Structure formats: structure tokens, C-alpha cells
């Protein structure tokens, strides 16, 4: 489909963008544009129809720098997925993030798509993406996926919406205790990834807590000595598909037992889904098949499968086990 008419602007500074966002009559009226790999598809699908796009790619104050700063790996919001996939710093300090980037989309899309946009992308739910269907997330009365074709939908939805979060990177970032730094009219704030992503509710039909006047600046991953991580993703085909289910796990070994354990699932909730129950099952234990199986079971204990997505329970359990095995090997 063809997009509706809109205006395009190239602000000179981030301050101009924040001011313009703050002054916008509604959140959808003025939208920042980076890689555009999600926003433009939403516009072509007539899901959003902004009056004005503000191009972020050439202004001062926002960048694609990847560096180590204060014992953190810091990635600028404009870092492309290709840079995350192939960059040496990410590869050295957070190979699971590089792998997640490599498993996302296609080379063409990864060349264009940015880290910030990847975290903010909207769900791929086919009811949300169909302009003829007024789903709850778009302002409708109810979620049609709950009783509909929900094979791709959530096991853990504390929300009227059962769409799943599509980001591969977000799942890993939660497992790495990353923080997201944003800037708005009131200044800069750093938000733990686990607080950045929040299930949509009546007052906020979105998957994150970014303010209407805020822009993502960067993402920081603390470097914890000895911590390793892994990311496993199941897709309908070998490439160019969003995760049916994915699992990001990380821990460090301290005297042979697991510490700082993180178990995060993708494709099972409207946000990246961290399982503290699974983490508790692993903390202080030696790595091994039995404890991995117990943790995997704990991760899925509260799952509420819909009519067509029960397979995700089995799949998620085994992906957690596979990811934990890989962390152990690393």
C-alpha cells in the first residue's frame, strides 16, 4: 500500500527534536525517523499516519558510537544492527547480543535498522498490523487475537493485548542488565531495561515507558567479569523471521556455582519476559541437566497458553535449556 502524505524534516539538533515532540498535538502526529524499517511499514500499512517525520540520522547529539565507558559497553541509539552483529567490541564483550542482531531480519534490513528503533518497534501481531481490524492496541475495544489466530501470541500477558514483543536485542539486553538512557524536555534519565519495557495497559497502549517528548540516546551493558551469555531463537524458517520463541541466558561461575543468573524469554509476552523463578532455581547451583530442566520448568510455570500457541511452552523450555548449556560451554 502507499503511504499518506506527510512532511519530512531534518532537525539540526536533538534539542530541536525534543522540542518538536513536546509540542506535537498527539504522539502519532510527529514521529522521529531513524532506520525507518518499522515506522515506514506501519505507515504503508496505514497503522500510523504521522503528519511529520523528524529524521534523526544527521543531527548532533545522537550517534552510532560503540565504546567502553566506566566499565560499561555503551552503544549509541543509531548503531545499526549490522554494526552490532559485526563490531569487535560487541563481539568481545557481549557475543549473545551480536548473535541476536545476526538472527534479526535480513542483511538489507540490518544495514538500515538501528538499536533505538529496534527497542521501540511495534508488535508484529497480524491483527495489530491489519488496518481493517480495530484491535485493542490500536485503540479498539478488544484484542481479537485472544480468540483468533494466536499461534504467534503470548503465554504471559498481563495486558488486554496478547501480542509479543518482536525485538531480539531487547531479550538479550534484559539478560545483561542493560540500562536505556533517554532524553526529553526534563533532561536525561537512565532506565533499567526491565523498567523500560512494560506491558500495555488502558492508560498506555504501548510496550515501553518512553515519554512522548523523549528520544533513546544509548544503551549501556555493565561488564561483569566472568559473566557469559547465550541467545537461542526459534523461527518458522531459517532466516528473515521474528522469533516464535527465543531465550537469552547469562550467569557467571563462582566457585563452580552459578551467580548473577538471568533467564529472559522472547516471543512469549508483550515485553521481553524475565523469569526470576528460573533464576532462583539456578542461583547457587552447579550447572547440570537436572537443574536446567527444573529452571526451564520454573520459567514456564505460570504460562497461560492460548488456543494455538501451546507449542511455545515446550519450545521455550527447551530453548532455555539449550541457552543454559551454551552459557556453560562458553
Amino acid at each position: 500500500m502507499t503511504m499518506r502524505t506527510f512532511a519530512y524534516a531534518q532537525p539540526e539538533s536533538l534539542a530541536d527534536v525534543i522540542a518538536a515532540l513536546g509540542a506535537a498535538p498527539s504522539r502519532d502526529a510527529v514521529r522521529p525517523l531513524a532506520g525507518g524499517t518499522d515506522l515506514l511499514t506501519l505507515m504503508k500499512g496505514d497503522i500510523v499516519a504521522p503528519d511529520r517525520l523528524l529524521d534523526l540520522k544527521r543531527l548532533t547529539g545522537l550517534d552510532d558510537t560503540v565504546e567502553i565507558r566506566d566499565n560499561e559497553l555503551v552503544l549509541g541509539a543509531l548503531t545499526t544492527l549490522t554494526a552490532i552483529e559485526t563490531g569487535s567490541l560487541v563481539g568481545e564483550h557481549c557475543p549473545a547480543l551480536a548473535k541476536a542482531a545476526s538472527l534479526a531480519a535480513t542483511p538489507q534490513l540490518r544495514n538500515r535498522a538501528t538499536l533505538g528503533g529496534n527497542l521501540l518497534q511495534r508488535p508484529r501481531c497480524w491483527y495489530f498490523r491489519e488496518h481493517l481490524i480495530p484491535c485493542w492496541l490500536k485503540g479498539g475495544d478488544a484484542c481479537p487475537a485472544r480468540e483468533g489466530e494466536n499461534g504467534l501470541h503470548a503465554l504471559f500477558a498481563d495486558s488486554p493485548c496478547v501480542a509479543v514483543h518482536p525485538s531480539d536485542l531487547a531479550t538479550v539486553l534484559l539478560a545483561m542488565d542493560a540500562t536505556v538512557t533517554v532524553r526529553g524536555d526534563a533532561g536525561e534519565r537512565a532506565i533499567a531495561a526491565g523498567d523500560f519495557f512494560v506491558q500495555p495497559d488502558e492508560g498506555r497502549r504501548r510496550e515501553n515507558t518512553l515519554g512522548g517528548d523523549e528520544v533513546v540516546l544509548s544503551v549501556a551493558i555493565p561488564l561483569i567479569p566472568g559473566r557469559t551469555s547465550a541467545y537461542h531463537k526459534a523461527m518458522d524458517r531459517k532466516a528473515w523471521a521474528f522469533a516464535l520463541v527465543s531465550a537469552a541466558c547469562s550467569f557467571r561461575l563462582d566457585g563452580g556455582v552459578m551467580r548473577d543468573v538471568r533467564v529472559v524469554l522472547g516471543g512469549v509476552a508483550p515485553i521481553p519476559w524475565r523469569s526470576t523463578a528460573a533464576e532462583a532455581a539456578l542461583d547457587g547451583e552447579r550447572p547440570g541437566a537436572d537443574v536446567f530442566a527444573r529452571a526451564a520448568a520454573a520459567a514456564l510455570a505460570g504460562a497461560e497458553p492460548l488456543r494455538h500457541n501451546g507449542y511455545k511452552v515446550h519450545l521455550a523450555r527447551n530453548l532455555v535449556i539449550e541457552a543454559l548449556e551454551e552459557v556453560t560451554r562458553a
Partner: protein
Amino acid sequence: MSTWQVERQEGEDGEVTLSVAEGTPLSPWDAGAALRIVGTPRTRLEGVEKVTGSAQYAYDVRLAGQLYAGILRSPHPHARLTRVDTTAAAALPGVHAVISLADAPDIDWYDDSKLFDPTLRFAGDEVAAVAAEDEDIVADALRLVVAEYEPLPFAIDIVAALAPGATPIHEGGNVESEKTYERGDVEAGLRAADVTFDRVLTTQTAIHHSLEPHGCTVAWEGEGVTVWESTQSIFDVRQQVAEKLGLGESQVRVIKQHMGGGFGSKQIVWKQTVIAALLAKRSGRPVQLMLDREGESLAVGNRNPTRQRLRLGATADGTLTAIDVTIHQAIGAHSAGGEGSNTAGLYQTLYACPNVRTSQTGVYTNTGPAVAFRAPGYVEAAFALETGMDDLARQLGMDPLALRLTNYTGDDQSKEMPFSQPDGLRACYEKATVAFGWGETIEQPAESHRRRGVGIAAHHWVGGAGDPPGYAWVKLNPDGRADIITGTQDIGTGTRTGLAMVAAEELGFTLDQVTFHLGDTALGPYAPVSSGSATMATIGPAIRAAAAEAKAELLAAAAAFLEEPVERLSVRDGLIRVAGEPEDRATPVAAVTGSMSPHMIQTQGARGGNPEDVSIQTFGVQCAEVEVDTRTGEVTILRVVAAHDCGRIINPTTVDSQVIGGVTQGIGFALTEERVVDAATGIVLNANLEEYKVPTVSDIPGIQNVHVGIPDLKANPTGSKGIGEPPLIPTAPAIANAVFDAVGVRFYDLPLSRSRVVDALAARERQGMPA
């Protein structure tokens, strides 16, 4: 040397038709024929044009003043269009023409419908169309069309459409057609069986998704109209456009030089062609109307989903005693026409069996109309029948190959006559299984959750025999080069190259001495639709006939030129040779043709009818090796080996291409491709290439095509049959059987999606079976 006879025939309704018998007797190229070009691998004549972007597709046409058009589609699967108002759309600056139910001419479409019908029968049905100066204006204008609908009850699948009290989609109800066939006594056969198979199997709706969408560019000149169309049949487009618009056929010119795939979906004329012609007439400008991917997904065909209850019986030695199948297939909202989806055909013919009963029911549903999709019906049937055969083999403790060979037949039992090539399928079994190493132990990965397995499936196919009539012309120019002219079309398969090779072979020319012309109804003689894998077998013999006559005239002219008796002359590599004379005394063709200028040798060849005492079929066998991860349900195809009997292979390169492409589509059909319709709204949820998952290059393994290449001398004088459709037929069952071999789980429903495989493996694990 060619014949032409007309016979008057009067039908029961008094209608007189003239039956024409024609053709040129040619000695067949038998297995020992010393051919110099045919059978050698050749790259496509148009390859450079395609990779450099200069090849002109329907979309590439740009005419002075050309407008662009788009279609407004119904958001409801079944509704009455109570009001449509295009005033605001027409008033938008840049809009030059609109059309809708409000002002469309009364043009019949499908069986009982109209070009713009007040009853909309699927989500995606045509409501209105606009032509404007660019595509953005078109989109804006379509949003301004006011359409009001009275929604009606709807049925989107076979079960809903046949349920008591289901909404009738057409006046006569929801059963579109019923066909039955019976030989012997299946109940007695089942009673005599030692092992039986009795299951319901289903196949999904698949979308063709040609790389190039459907569409056309239309320009009027006076009362005549030229249509550049992405089509498998320029002459059918000509006939249909003429009929719908009330023109003579000679007033319609249809051009198609290159095409990015059709796979059956472009073998009929869809509404957008006539809509574009009407918009062009109204606006007085050329109009281009290409569908977007959503339109491709909704309104221009699909592979009909099937539900097949299959019963098989066999004795302890593997002899089939009964095949009984009850087939329901959802044909969508309309009978679209074209090549029928004969799902029952495979059951009647593939295996020797005295007791066979088939029942096939076409069911209307409120979904986009189905149309032929590369081996329609046979792909669906092969999944069910070859799954059942694999199961019987397991029950009997027999090798699946041995079971198939036990039930081999060289006769077409449904037609009660022998196959033209009774050993074709046997050769496929041998070639495929030897190349694959069937029966050899496969190596299992060290990790116990990764299991490998192998599967085999066979097929015959009713197409590939050729579809006469069809014609070709040959001109020998003064410069010694030949023009070959036919009204056929190259739908992306390499037709140009293969047919040019036939011409060069028969003329005794080199391939670069031949210039090939096709794809224009005004400039070439009639050729039929490129469907049923027919083009090579239809037009190849016509070209041979025209070339043979041209060569005879050339040699007669050369005899006069060289003052040699014609019996001593021959043409090879573009040189006229005198028997017994040294090679270096050969005379270039141009010396002869130049000396008779401006007179030229110009001949016509006609494709004679097919023989009536044999059944011409194509055959194939495929073997697949897969790996299944029992933890994640991931299925990886490791390799596919194919062997297909398409008679004499004209161009091995393009035959390999057809097999690679067909197997690729087969892998998509086996694992990922499925149209999804929302039951609550009737809306297609994956009318795009993101959620409708065709295989990517990473999903496709090495595909080995083993050449069979036995000339079918009874089929036609080239000995060649079609290869377009067959390679897709056995792929899905070969894969499903390999999955069973790997993990012991049988799938009765396609596709073997990740969710299905994981569910089945999880269910088995719950039953305490080893993972």
C-alpha cells in the same frame, strides 16, 4: 508434406464447428539421433537482458501520458454493496477516471457474477478502481471512495460451507462440482487386504506469489487496444478482452516479452485487465494497473485447500487391493476457470490397483478464488497418497521403494491404454534412488536430539504432453540468419532458448544464427496457453516442422546455386555441405539466401494432434534427507535428489532450473507456506511476504536433478515432454516421509510448521516415548 483437412461437426444444439486436422509428418528424434544442439546445456538467450535490467516486463512499459491505477477491495468476506459513491475520488486533482458498480458496463464474469457485482463474495473482491497520474494519488483517491456494505453470513472453509444452514455463496448452494470414478470393488479389495490405511489428510491454501505481480498496461488507438500483460497466455487474453469489451479479436493486441513467474495464476484473465482497459477508455490515456502484494495474496488465485479421507489396502506381499479417496477442496468464491484441480487423478493412475474409487467435491467458500497452481490437484494428492504408501510399507516391514515397485504399472488404468513411455517411472525410481544412495545407512549426529531420516515419493502428471494446435513460422533472411516466430510466450521457464535450440537443430544452423520472436498476438501465429507443462511439447514440434520445410527449400535453392543434386546436400553448423566434398569447401547459408534476395524462404509449421492410442504422462521420483531437532522441532532439509521423466531433454540447464524451482516451492509447501484467514472477520491475516513465509535461500539444500532423458517417441516428433509442473509434486511427501523416518512421528496435515512439529514431539514425550 504437411496436411490440412477440415471436417464439419454439428453439435446436438445444432451448432456447427469445423474440426481441423493438420500437421507435418516428421521422423522422430530417436535415442540414436545425432543431435548437435538439442541436449547440450545452454544459458538463456535473454539472460543478459534480465540481469542487466533491460528486459521489459509489463510493469516496465512507460507510454506518453500514462496513468496508474489501483483497486478498492471489499473488507468483508460476504456482503451486499448497498452504496458506492466515487464523486470525491473523481474530484481529486490528478484523478482521470474512476469505475465502480455505480457506472460500470454490464460485463459478465465468472459463472454468475459481474465485473463489478453488487454481491461481494470474498475479502478482496473488487469494489471500485481509479486511474490517476501517480500511485500516491491513486491511493488517496481510493480512500475517498464511499462504499457501504450490508454484511452477510459467510463461510471461509470446507466444513463451514457444507454445514447445515450454511449461507449459500451462489444460488445453487456451496457445492461447485462433484466428480466420481470407480473401477473394481474397493470394499471387496479392503476386505481382502492384510494391512490398511484409513486417515483424513489435509493440505493448506498456498499462494502463488510470483515475483512479478499480475498486471498490465493498456493503450487504445481508435477502436483497437494494445495490452502489455503479465500472462501465461497472450491469445487467451486477446480472446477474453475482445469478448468482454465487445471487440473483434483482431482489434486486441496482446504483448508479453518477459514474465517474473505465473505458476498457473496467470493462465486466465482476471478482472484487472478489463478494468484497466475501461479506465484507459474513459480517461483517453494509457493505463497501467499492477497489483500490489496484498492484491496478489487475495484476488488472483491460490492452491485450493483439501480435505482427503484416504483408505488403502494391501496384501502381505505389498500388492495394493484398494484405493478409496473422498476429496473435498475449497475452490473459493468463484470457479475461476483454467486448468482444473484434478486431485483424484493421481489415485486413479499412479499405482496398479484393480479396485479404485475416487470422489471429488469442489466447495465454494468466501475466500479468494482458487486457480491452477503448478500441478494443481496432484501436489495435494501426492501428499496424501504417498504418506499412505509410506505407512503401508512400515506396516508391512517393506522398503518404501520396494512397495512402490511391487505396484508398478505401465498402463494408464483409468484410460485403459498403455502409457506412451511405460518405463518412464521405472527409470525415475532407478535414477533417483541410485544417485541418492537409497537403502544405505545414514549417519546420525552425535547429539541424540538431532535425528536424520530419509523419505521417497513418486508421481505421475497428466500434463507435459502438449496441447495442440500451435504454430510457428520460419524466415530465412538474405544474410543467412533465421527468424523463428511463434505466438507462444516465455513465462520465465526458458522457452525461448529451448525452442530456438529445436529450430537451430532442425535447420542445421548454429544457435546464434537463430533469432527468436514470441509474445505478440499481432506478429506471431497462434499458440495456446502456457499451462499443463505443455509449451515445449506443443510448439517444439511445430517449430521442427517449419524448420524442416525451410531446410528443404534451402537445400533446393542450394542445389541450384551449387549445381549439385539435392540428395548430396546437407546443412550443418550453418554451412551447406556436399557429400564427399572436403569440409573446407562448405558453403555459407548466406551465399545461397543472399543470391535469391529479395525472395526469402518462409515456412509455417503446425503441431499435429496427439496420438489417441497411448496415454502421454510425465513421471518423477524424489528422495529427501532431513534432520529434525527433537528439542526445538526444527526441520532442516539436508538434500533432495530428483529424477523426472520429461522425455528428451532439450536444454539440461533450464530443466535443472525447473527442478530446482519446483523443489523449492515444494519445500515451502511442505514446511512454511499457508494462507491464514481470520475466522471472525474472514480477513486474510498474512497477505504479505513477511507473514506468508516462502522459503529463503537458507532453507533450501543442495538439489540434485538426475537426468532421465528417454525420448518419448510416441508422444511427438521431438520426443520431449514438459517439466514445468512435475518437480513440485513429490517434494512435500518425500519430506514428510523423511521426517517420519527420522523421529517416528507421522504428519497428516500440511504444512509441517514449527508449531505442528513441536506439538507432535511434545505429545509423544508426554506419552513417555523417547525424545
